[in-house]
Every structure is written in C-alpha cells, then in structure tokens.
C-alpha cells in the first residue's frame, strides 16, 4: 500500500469544501438551486477523477521503460536513488 497522507487529505479537503460547505453559502435567489447543483457535481466529478489517477499510480504493476540515454540524463537532472 503506497498512499501518502498529505496529498490525499489536501485534495479531498479542498473538494469537500467546494462540494459540501460552499453550497450552504450560496446567496438566496432564483439561481440558488442551479449553483448548488453545479458546485456539488463539480466537486464530486473532479475528486473522483483525481482519486482514480492517484489510486492507479499508488501500487504500480509495471514501471517506465526508458532508453539508457534518457536514464543517464534523468540521473543527472533528478538525482539518483531514494536511499539517502
């Protein structure tokens, strides 16, 4: 299981605020219902979209295949080894 707490909490909290907190504060008017629907649907779909992407990469079954040339450059630019 490779889930890190921080991104999950941050993203979920953000969409939670958009979808479950903000609708209560929509000003009364003829468009209240529509605005609430818009907020809730945006939050749900965007959060689900992000979640699927996160889950997919959490436990990868395969890794990236790259040419040695690319790997050399990557090693140079991004550093090597997660071991300190």
């Amino acid at each position, binding site marked *: 299981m490779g889930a890190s707490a921080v991104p999950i909490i941050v993203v979920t909290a953000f969409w939670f605020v958009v979808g479950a907190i903000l609708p209560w504060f929509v000003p009364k008017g*003829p468009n209240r219902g529509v605005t609430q629907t818009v907020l809730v*649907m945006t939050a749900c779909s965007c959060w689900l979209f992000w979640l699927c992407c996160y889950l997919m*990469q959490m436990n990868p079954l*395969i*890794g990236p295949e790259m040419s040695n040339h690319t790997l050399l450059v990557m090693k140079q630019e991004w550093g090597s080894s997660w071991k300190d």
Partner: protein
Amino acid sequence: MPLFRSEEMTLCQLFLQSEAAYACVAELGELGLAQFRDLNPDVSAFQRKFVNEVRRCDEMERKLRYLEKEIKRDDIPILDTGENPEAPQPREMIDLEAAFEKLENELREVNQNSEALKKNFLELTELKHILRKTQTFFDEMAESGHEDEHANLLGDDGLRAGGQVLKLGFVAGVILRERLPAFERMLWRACRGNVFLRQAEIDAALEDPVTGDQVYKSVFIIFFQGDQLKTRVKKICEGFRATLYPCPETPAERREMAIGVMTRIEDLNTVLGQTQDHRHRVLVAAAKNIKNWFVKVRKIKSIYHTLNLFNLDVTQKCLIAECWIPVTDMETIQMSLRRGTERSGSSVPPILNRMMTREVPPTYNRTNKFTAGFQNLVDAYGVATYREVNPASFTIISFPFLFSMMFGDAGHGLLMTLFALWMVVKEKPLAAKKIQSEIWVICFAGRYIMLLMGLFSIYAGFIYNDVFSKGVNIFGSAYKVNLTDHELQHHHSGMLVPNEANNHYRQTPYPFGVDPIWMLAENKIPYLNAYKMKISIIFGVVHMGFGVILGIWNHRFFGRNMNILVEFVPQIIFLVFLFGYLCILMFIKWTKYYAGAEDQALTPGCAPSILITFIGMVLFKYDTVALDGCENYMYPGQETLQKVMIITAVLVVPILLFGKPILFKMEMNKAKNHAVSEDVEVAGVPQTENHEGGDEPHEFSDVMIHQAIHTIEYVLGSVSHTASYLRLWALSLAHSQLSEVLWLMVLRKGLMFQDWYGGVILYFIFAAWAALTVSILVLMEGLSAFLHTLRLHWVEFQSKFYAGAGYLFVPFSFENIMEVQPGEE
C-alpha cells in the same frame, strides 16, 4: 428549484373589453409570458376581424422600406440607438400613417423634379457643345463655300436658277458615339451621297437623366439642299435617337444663344444643387427615426396578428382569448393587464380565469444567459415532456466534464478558455454588432459552454499531465534512477521495476495527476491506456447510474410510485450488480496488486485481467487450478458472490419485463369491479380516468409490448452503452497522439537548428505549429469531442430516464419578434 423540472403552466381564459384589448395585448407583448392559442383556426387570413389594420401596417412597412432604400442609396448612416419604443396606441397609428405618406410623397416629388431638371440640364449642355463645335464647321463651310462657288461658276451653271445663290440647309444635333458610324452609313445610302456630315466628339461625359450613367456623345451637323432631303435626314435622326437642336445661322445669333445657354445652365445648376440638398436633408431627418418607426410598426402588426387569434363574444363587446401562462407569473400578468386597461382609459377591468383542461401544456424552462446554452443542447434532442426532470441543470457540469476527459490538454484548454473569456467579457458590444455569420452566431451563443469546457480541460490536462503534449514536473517525480553508471552502461535493459528492492520508486505516488516520468517512457501508451479505459468505464457507469436514479423523481412526481419498485429497482440492480461490480473489481485491482508485494499471489504476474474475470463471471467459468504461486480469486468468497450477483441480475429482468403489465392488469380488474358495484357514482375512480387520458394505452397488449421493448432496450443498452463510454479513452488517446506528432514533427525540428539562422527558421516553424495547433487540435478535435459528448448525453444518459415528448413554450413577446425579423430581412 427552477431548472430541475419545467414550470407549472395553466390554461387561462382572458376577457378583454374591445377598447382595452389593444393596450392589454401590448403590455403582454412587452412582458413575454403568455402563449396565445388560435381560437379561429378555420377562418382564413382575409376573413379575420383585424385584417384591415394588418393591411395598413403592411402599407406602412412598404413605405418605410422605400425610405430605407433611398437613405441607403445616398449612403446616409442609419442611427441605431438600440432603444425599445413602446407600441403606439391605435390613434397614434393614424399619425404615423400620415407622416409616412407625407415623407413618401415628398421624396417621390423630389425625385421626379430632379429627374426633369437633369433632363433639362442635359439638353442645355448638349446645346452648348453644339454651338461651340458648329462654329468651326460653319467657318470651314464658309471658306469651301466660296471655293465651290468659284468651281460652280467656272464649271456648271445648270444649278443656278435665276442667278440665286446656292443655299444649303442644315440640321445640328447630338448622338451617342457608338451609333455614329452606322448613322453616317445610313445617311450616305439614303440620301445617295448628297448630304454632308461633319462631326466632333464631346470630350466630357454627360449624365443620362434616367439611368444616371455617364455616356459619351458626339456633335454632328448635316448639310443638305432641298426640302426632300431635309425630311429624310430628320427621319433618320429620329431613328437613331439623335436629338436635334435649332442652331441659328448667323454667327451673331449663335453667340447670343451661347451666352443665353450659359446663363441658363448656371441657373439650372443652382436649382439642381438646392434640390439635392433638400432631398438630403429630408433623408437625414428620416434616418434618425427610421429604426424607431420600424420597431413601432412591427409591434403594431404583431399586436393585430395576435388580436386576430381572439374570439369575439356574442355581445360584440369583448374579446375572448385563451393563453398558456406560468402559474407563478399570474400576479405579474394581472398587473400588466390592469396597466393596459388604465392606459386605454377603459373602465372595465380585464378578467383572467384559470381553465381546467386535459391538454398537455407546453414546457417552459426559465433560463438566464448562462443556463440558456445548456437548455438548448437538451432541447435540440427533444423538448422535455411537461414537468419531467430536466437534464439541463446537470448537463451544465457533466457536459464540460466529459468533454474535458476527451480533450485533456491544459495548453489547448487554456486557448479555449481565453477565447471564451473574451467572448463573455465583451458580451454586450459583441451582441450589439449583430454579426450575421451563422458560425459566429452559434459560437457566440455557446460562449459559457465553451468557457466551462476550457476550464475543465485545464484541470484534465493537469491530471493527464499533458500541456501541449509535454508533461510538467511540479511536485517532483516519484521515480528516480537507482543504478550506477556502470550498471547503466552494461547491464540495464528495459524497465525500472518499481518494487522495493530496486528502489526506483519511492513507494508513494505523484500527488496530483500522472507522474511526469511517464511522458518520457517508451511504454507510456499501454500504461495510460489501461488507466484511461478503466476511468472511462467508471465514469460511464456513474453517469448512467445517475440517469437511472433521476428516474425516481419522475416516477414520484407523476404518481407512479409502484414504478419505483418494478422499474427503478430492477434497473439499478442490473446496472450495479454487473457493471458497478466491474468498477469495484477495478478498484480492488488497483489497491491490492503491486510490483513490490511480498506475497507472491499479489505480484503483477498474478494480477488477473478484469475483462477475463468479468467474462468468466457471466459464463460461470471458474478456474479450479491457478498458476504457480497465484490464487484463483481476488478476495475470499469471490466465486459465491459473483454467482449470486449474476443470478440476481438475471432474475431481475423478468420483473422489469412483466412488472408493469401485471400492475396494469391488476388496476384494470380493480376498476372493472368498482364500476360494476358502484354504477351510480358518476365521478368514477381515478384509475378509470387515467385510462381515458390522452396517451395512456388502452390495451394490455400495448403495455406489454411497450414494456418488452423497454426491457430489451435497457438490458442490451447497458452493455452497449457501457462500452460506448470507451470513446472517452479513444478520443483522449487520439488527441494526445496528434499533439505529440505535432511536437515531434514540427516544433522539435525547429528547435534543433543551431546558430542565428535557427532563430529565423524557428520563427516560421512556430507559426506553422501554432496554426496547426489551433486549427487541428483546438478547432477540429474540440468539435469532435463536443459531438461525442453530446452523443453520450443524448443517447447513453438520457435514455435512462428522459421521455422528451413535449413542445416548447413560445410566448407572445416583442423581444422574440424583434430578434427574428432582422434576420429575415
């Protein structure tokens, strides 16, 4: 909630006093909330009550159009203040008519006068030219005359009769240059060469008074002897339409005439100038008001058309109208009717009565400029049945979202957002321009849709990590190369396997979106394909499930609560147990199987293919023997659970097929029993009334067939529609590949040139790349993704709950009429 379902409408009867009718209808037209029904459908247009008034309005429009034509001919700009004048009262109509009549007559008179003046001017100018040119002729003639005389004297004196001097007659005139050669030939032939023609061209072009063209003419003078030749010459001149002018013989007279002609030309010029000025002034004054007048006349005409729909009651004192109005607006309409009655000075207040009717009212959705675009998308497929759930309020988000899944590039999304933002911010000035191009009109009408599509595409672009086909590394990749240089050069081949031993992968994923390393990987496409196919199915099942759930509100609203049990429950069970379970399997596979797992059963080699698992589930095929080290199942109890789910899903289909018809039959039997036992009661049972309603089927067989079709559609549809959502994957793949090709083949080649000339080449290559990006990737792909999203909504989503058998509410509204008319003209 306003947009959730269409408004409640009621049929109303309106009693208007004849005097007040006009003013009340005018007020209703400004309000735009009432749809009038035609109460005289069999009456032809010529027999209606207000046909004379309509004819007068047509006359006024004709006069206004004539005015407009004259104004445009003089290139006077027409002022369009965009103001909206009120419909004038009937007595003002007479004033307007008189004003237009006066203007038209004035213009016609001015035009006639200026035509006559121009003709006069032309004649005088031609005369002036003649007088000038003929002077030379006469001089020559005078000389040669002397010689001739000498010759005659010397030679032949047969011509001389009684010692008289030889006298030559002449005519002078002007003819079109093109006709001159033929004219000469004709003269020569007809007069047997006994006439003498001299001609000279007029250099300046003259204006033809009738057509206004500039033509070139020539002056000619013909000398002849005798009366017979004179008549012949005159006839030929007539035939060739040459204008003849009297030309005095003596030079002194000619000079006098020339002076007289010059003065007359001067005078005429002044008069002509003044006439033109007058005409110009009249037209400029008219141009200020002409738009106003057009609007007023159109309003009057539309009011009388509407009045023609009304019925005149027996006493001939009041008009009866029937109209559909939204129930919430009854107060507003009452107020405007009262206003209209006051304005017309009538004492009798109008009466607005609600009528009970079985007819299906029109569908009215109150939209603002933002929601109108989405409502149009839904209405284009089919107008919602009266008071059923309106998909438009959900389409506001689901449409741009599904579009963004297919368009998923932050760079292209940014371009789309900027363009839409420009259209939205500059709304008012752009709308005022009234650009006629149809493509622009459609584009502008969809500006809010485009804005949302662009914004969601930017989000999707960050999730897919695709900005103009390049990935961005915001948070630092989750992968690092954990190999020494020696290993890289000699031993490494292929994949950075992400298990814990190798330590290429830091064991937690990239926090937002796809890891940037995948943009550099050679196996990017298979990896992303697996991802995109899965999310397409997940979102597809969610979208369709949402559609089925929306059906609950329709069932409850129309009082068909039993339908929830026999339609909704089987449908949702079928969808969730089969395709919802498919999604759950995907989530299990994502969380459970892992390259670095310690348990070999959870390593990638043992990860089952979801598709094979699903097929096995449906076919009841379960492997008893697993591969080495692997397990048969993804979780304990899988076989039992899957068998139970399949059997339940299959069992639910007959409920869907027979549930409603059986209920129908039970109701019919109950009604028959009731009717038999209580035949005195006139009111009858509500169920019988339902049977007699307009669209309820009468027969059991109708219901059975209808439900059979619905069941087959739903069952087959859930399979085919679920697969149809894979287009979300397909278009996203196509888009990313197209943009990658554009990068590789165009922009990258430009960036590879070195030195200063590389900069010049890059300048042109960038232009090509930008043009191709906008035209192919943004426009073409955008249109394509738009179309596919539309199809997904219309077919896959709406078929789960939408009937779409209503008709649109078209109120009598001046705004609508004003919008339509300019396009027609």
